[in-house]
């Protein structure tokens, strides 16, 4: 049956990923999670957010490329998906520029009765 259908255009187009590749990706993702948690106990100052985001992005790329088959997908799908992140970047960047130009938050400091109840014994 498979030989029969192989002859036909548009059939048998599936390319199952090898299991070791999937398992390896999962392993790497887990290790990167451990790394993220571990790095939180060191102080890298302002680099902190950067390191965290780089690790998260590596993980996201792994999930996207292998689990979501993007590495073997049609270029148009890849462009769509990557494009969305480009626009997210623009969106957040410009909003942050904008918020830098204004004062800090104007959240009213109310309901702030500082607690002075005696400690329970």
């Amino acid at each position, binding site marked *: 049956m498979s030989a*029969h*259908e192989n002859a*036909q255009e*548009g*059939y*048998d*187009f*599936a*390319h*199952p*990923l090898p*299991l070791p590749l*999937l*398992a390896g*990706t*999962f392993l790497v*993702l887990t290790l990167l*999670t451990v790394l*993220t*948690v571990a790095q939180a106990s060191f*102080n890298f100052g302002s680099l*902190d957010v950067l390191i*965290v*985001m780089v690790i*998260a992005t590596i*993980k*996201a790329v792994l*999930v*996207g490329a292998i*689990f*979501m*088959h993007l590495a073997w997908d*049609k270029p*148009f*799908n890849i462009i*769509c*998906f990557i494009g*969305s*992140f480009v626009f*997210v970047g623009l*969106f*957040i960047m410009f*909003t*942050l520029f904008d*918020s830098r130009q204004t004062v*800090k*938050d104007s*959240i*009213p*400091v109310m*309901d*702030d009765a*500082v*607690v*002075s*109840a*005696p*400690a*329970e*014994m």
Partner: protein
Amino acid sequence: MATTDAGLASDAHEQPGHGHSDHGHGDHDHPSYLAHHFDTPEQQFDSGKLGMWLFLVTEVLFFSGMFCAYAIFRAWRPEVFEGCSQFLNTKLGAINTGVLLFSSFTMAWGVRCAQKEQHKLLTAMLATTLSCATVFLGVKAIEYSHKWHLGLLPAGLFSYDPSNPHPVGGPNYLAYICAPFALITIGVAIWLVVSFLRGAKFQLECAKPLMVVCLCFFVGVGLGTILESGGDEGHHEDDHAVVASADGTAAEHGDDPSHADGEEHAEHVEPAAEAVAGLPAAGAMSNDSADLAVLERLASDATNTGLQDELAARKAQSERSGGGILYDVSDDASATVASAPENVLRPSRAGVFFSIYYCMTGIHAIHILAGIGVLVWLLVRSIRMDFNRNYFGPVDYVGLYWHIVDMIWIYLFPLMYLIR
């Protein structure tokens, strides 16, 4: 008619006009799984996949709004995020990350199974993915109920009180969260028994994995409970560390009011330290739990009222300084209007952090629920053996959705739980 059965292979299978649908390679005929308006299964798959990718793009943009809110508030008040992040249990977050990653792995494996027509294994993989999803929700239920109990609520409802962190008499939030899941579990159990008694084989096959999936929610709740209570001791140490680091940052910033406040605090301690023999020096207030224990034993003598009062004062002071993370300890006359805006860890601002936290994780959890819904649909179809190597689109599309939910959590976890 032909257009309506696009996604329902079995319907097409039963259409009289579409006979010999299994290998129909004639001019007009097509396999049961191939919708009428597609030439080949590959074309059908690619069309569906493009649609799914476009949907995922909208999902990314949808979540980006919340990430943007996060970015702005964190840029404005990094110290609020630092302080409030201490209330999130990193262990639970890390466990949930692992669970989601594993479910992504089983989902990707499931797609492979569908492509290779391993029907039994596909069912097992989908059931595993579903179980991971419910474990995730179970752990989440513990996290949420614990925070609600402490009063760590969104802005406007935020009522955390560091000197009384465990208010008694609140509603049992965990029971409320678990109630719908318990009802569903009971329903599935009844379904399981009924289908077993009636000998409905297909229904029994569906009910069995779903029963496991439902029970996994309570496994998650149990796991969360163990980790949450096990982390309690560490939590107290954390609190002290937080106080210390808060002092440290205040000194770094050269923040005059809080600096003066710290000195004032130390001065305040000194007379008490001199009054009671054997007390540690001033400034070591937060690390003297061992001495407090000794004092406690001395004070357990009911006649020793002086020492008891001393102990009460010490404890009160210790707890007040422990609350330094959330509230300015200089809550007396020195807290002027001018210094009030500096007290950034106030309920109104801490509440904003928790608003963002609940919004992002809550909508993520809703996505998990939606994912559970479509995965159950896949599970039933997989038991029906609907998928083959030319028709595995639904598994693949749901897989893509599931991976993007995982991807969002990959970003959420460090941004929420791992702020220093």
